[in-house]
Structures are given as C-alpha cells and as structure tokens.
C-alpha cells in the first residue's frame, strides 16, 4: 500500500533525525577524547582530531584511581537507587491511597523539600552530617538523598491512576493494605520504577559538589570528583576530561539498554479487561 510505505519512510526519517541530533554531541565527546589538551576548545569548530591518539583513553584506563572511583560510585549508586525506591514508593502509596489523620500536614511536609534550593541548605547540611559523624563514609553519600520529594511525588501521581477496582477486589479477598501494596501495586510498578530509578542513579552518579564537601578519603573518591581533577589540579585538560566522561557514561548506557524493556504496555489495565 502506497500510504503505508509513505508513512513508514516518514517515520524512518524521523527516527534518523532524532538519533542524529541526540547522538551528535555524544559522538563529539567520544571523539574529543582523542584530541590533545588544547585542541578540544580550538575555534573554529572541528569535529575530528588532527591526529587520532589513544593516549587519553589508555592513560585513564591504566589509572587505578579511575577504576576504583568507577566501582565505588557504581555500588553506591545501586544501593542509593534501591533504598530510595523502597522509602519513596511506600510513602507514595500511603499518600495516594490511604486516608489518615494529619494527611495534609504530612503531605506538605514531604513535598516541600522539592522547592528548597540546594544553596539554601548546602552548608548547613554539611554541618549536620559532620555533627552526626558521617564524613568520609559511604553513608554520607547515600543516606541524605534517599528520601526524595520529587520521586515520591512522581510515584504518588502514578498510583493515583491505578483503578480503585483492583484495590477493592484484593481487599474483598481479605488482603490488608500492606498486602495490597506488596502484591498489587509493586508488581505493576516496573515502568515507573525504571523511569525514576534511572533518574536517581544518575543523580548519584553525577553528584559533584556534595562528594567534594564530604569526602576526602581517596579510597571513597567518586567518579565526578575524579573527572573534576582534569579541570583544576591538572590544568583544564579537556582531552582527558572528554575521554574520562565518555568512559564514565558507559555503565549508565549499559543500564539503560538492560532496563528500557520494562517501559512497555502496562499489564494491569489490559489484564483487567
């Protein structure tokens, strides 16, 4: 059918267009990793290097500080993501589905942190965690950010959309609220969990200022802290920074490839019909 062919060609072109506009900057970053120190920022703009040199990539891969920072940050990011999904989804369910005394007050209390500018509490947060003796531990990187108003808000909005009938059916069968949450809501949260989970993971992975404030122990150095050294101590080595950023983005891309499959047709509504 000509209309079908036309439509197909159109959507293929759109796919290519979007892919190019998104992948171009990434390709530039990866290729800039092959450039020399002052070549990256040279004007006018140049896509390919004068000479392809592997030295930036090999230097970073041989650097044990880099490997350790990748592992430490990756493990921290995974723990952080799981903990925040547990804490925030529980609160989200309560705010979306339960009636309780003081609900409005606690709702405002839990949503308010979303509007607090980082600058307003950055220094005093540092004072608080140092009073709690948390400096230079994994805990100081993970725990303070676990409760997230934005993530809880997202999951609550998602749970508001769940049909009431599903919940009522389970409760008529004698399930209590915990069982409804664990057996009805959680199994059908894969898509929203992947979406906010990746956001949490990235927030942890890309954190820069907080690790710099709280971590001085070299064995806990985070990946962005490591990359930051190319911009200060070692005098703005853009080639190294680009090579390091490219390597540092690989685990995230891998996770995206694995988890994108969960963002598919929800089973809950189709299963009900």
């Amino acid at each position, binding site marked *: 059918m000509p209309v079908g062919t036309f439509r197909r060609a159109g*959507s293929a072109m759109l*796919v290519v267009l*979007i*892919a190019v506009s*998104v992948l171009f*900057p*990434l390709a530039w*970053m990866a290729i800039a990793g092959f450039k020399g120190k002052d070549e990256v920022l040279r*004007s*006018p*703009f140049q896509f390919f290097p004068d000479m392809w040199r592997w030295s930036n990539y090999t230097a970073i891969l041989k650097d044990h500080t880099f490997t350790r920072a990748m592992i430490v940050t990756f493990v921290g990011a995974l723990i952080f993501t799981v903990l925040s999904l547990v804490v925030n989804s529980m*609160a989200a369910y*309560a705010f*979306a589905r339960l*009636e*309780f*005394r003081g609900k409005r007050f*606690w709702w405002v*209390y*839990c949503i308010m942190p*979303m*509007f*607090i*500018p980082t600058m*307003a*509490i950055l*220094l*005093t947060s540092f*004072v*608080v965690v140092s009073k*709690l003796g948390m400096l230079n531990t994994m805990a100081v990187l993970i725990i*303070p*950010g*676990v*409760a997230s108003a934005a993530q809880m*808000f997202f999951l609550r*909005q*998602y749970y508001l*959309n*769940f049909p*009431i*009938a*599903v919940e009522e059916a389970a409760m008529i069968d004698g399930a*209590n609220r915990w069982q409804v*949450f664990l057996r009805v809501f959680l199994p059908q949260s894969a*898509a929203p969990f*992947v*979406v906010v989970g*990746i*956001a949490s993971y990235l927030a942890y992975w890309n954190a820069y200022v907080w690790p710099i404030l709280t971590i001085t122990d070299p064995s806990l150095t985070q990946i962005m802290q490591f990359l930051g050294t190319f911009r200060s101590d070692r005098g703005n080595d853009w080639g190294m920074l*680009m090579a390091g*950023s490219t390597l540092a983005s690989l685990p*995230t*891309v891998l996770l*995206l490839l694995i988890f994108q499959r969960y*963002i598919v*047709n*929800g089973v809950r*509504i*189709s299963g009900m019909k």
Partner: protein
Amino acid sequence: MALLDSNRAAASPKAPGAVPRRVGARRQDNLTAYLMIAPMVVLLGVFVMWPLAYSVYLSTFEISFYKAPKFVGAQFYKYVLESADFWHSILIGLSYALLVVPTGIVIALLLASFIKTLSKRVAAFMKVTVYLPAVVSTVIASVLFTFMYQDAGVVNWFLSLINHAPIAWLNSPQWALPAIAVPGIWLGFGITTLILLAALLDIPDSYYESAMLDGANFFQRLRYITIPLLKNVLLYLFVTGFTLAIQMLDLPLIMTNGGPTGATTTPNFYIFNSFRELTPYATSYSLTASLLLFVVLGAISIVIFRLIRSDKAVDG
C-alpha cells in the same frame, strides 16, 4: 459569615451531598499509613528540615570571617527584598522556565506518541537514544552548545543558507536567554519523554479504538482522551519542571556568565555571584536570598497545583 459561606458555595460547583464522596466511604488506616511514611518523614527531618531550620536561624545573623556573629533579625531579608537585582533574577528565571518547560513537554509528548507507534526493536533503540542527553553532564553540553553558537558555528551556518546575517547568539540581550534555553530543553526532554511514554502505554487501546470508530481525529483524541488521562503525570512534570528550570545555574555559568547585561542572570546565578563576591556578609546575604527563592518556588508551585487539580484517583 453568610458572605463567607456563599463564597465557599460558589467555589465548589457541586452541591454538597449531590455526589457520594468515595473518600468519605473509605475507612482510615492511621497506623499503616504512619508506618509507611515514617522512613521518609524521619530522613527528611534529619537531612532537610534540620539544615533548613539551621539556615533560617543563621540568616538572622551577620556572619563575617573577621567578627563574631551578630544578631540582626530580619535585616538581610529587607536587603534582599529591596534589591532590584534579586527580583530581576526571579523574572529571568521565570522567563527561562516558560521557554523550557512547556516546549519540552510538548516535544516529549509528540515524541512519546511517536515511539508508541514504532515496532518493538526500533522503540527499544529510541527509548535509549532519547535518554542519552541526560547522561552527558551539563558541563559538556554547555561547552558543545557554546561552539555551535559561535559566529562561524553550525547555527549561523544554517542562517547563511537562508541569506541571513549571522547573529551573536550569546552576546545579544534578546537572544541569549532563548539560546541557553535550547540546551536546557535538550538535556531534559529524555526523561520527560520516558515518563510520558510510560503513562501513555497505560492508556488502554480500547479507548482510542472506540474514539476512532466515532470518527475522532488525532487532535480530538489528544484533547479528549490523552490529556485528561495524563493529568496526574502532567502535574508532576509542570511542577518539577518549573522548580528545576528556575534554579538553573550551570548553563548561564558556563555559556554566558549571566550576561549580556544580566539577560541570563537566573536566581541561582545571582545567589552564586553574591556568595563569591568578596564583600563582608556575602554568606548571610546569599543564604537569605536562597531562602527567599524557596518561598517564591513554593508560591509558583501552589499556583500550578491549583491550575491542574489531580487529587482524585481514577475510577477504573
């Protein structure tokens, strides 16, 4: 009293008792609910509320490296509120958010609708691809876009194709803000697209099928099925989008340094600048300004919450 009552009656279009309220029929679950919110409440209490209270306390003192802190009450609040630069930065932040958020959501909605129609394989590729800009750090995106905006950059090359003189994007007061809004949209539309895709996939196909049988076109389906059913998610996207956009710091910091003539001085850039200025009391002043920004963000969010009401669960 009578006036107050009539106001209230006018505010709620439904007569009381006309519609049986579902919420009232549900029993309370105090204990379960408290246990479920407890971890979040405690963590926020320790790591957000405590530092916040401490910041508010500190903002009533004059802190300088050379002298002992001195209590000054609300004096810094007065300084900030009387500063024209502070209000100007709020205005810039709002303009930036108005450029970035609605555009980003519209693009993401179109893109998500498009991905939904693709085959499984291509859809998988697109789901990963659209998210990739978020993986690149803001620093790298800023550097790259600065290149593209140069006089001899890619953007002006496109202008030359339509015989237009090059524009000094980052150096012209009227173009600088839109110019930094583009990377702002680019960095954020991936997550927005995935969120909307996840929500779109939850709308049963049968709704669209029956609408198409009734002869509804694409825009009618969008207007009467998609948007109403996405209301809960859209509320989230608007509130978080505005909150984050108004607080943008990295892009103006790297691309324009707040200029030209303050055209890209967002609130956080203003606060950051007053913090690094070496005047005495820079700490107290910037702390107070950021606390006042918190109030502004809260107020804007209340307006958005009012505009998009979404407190009801959907009756399946």
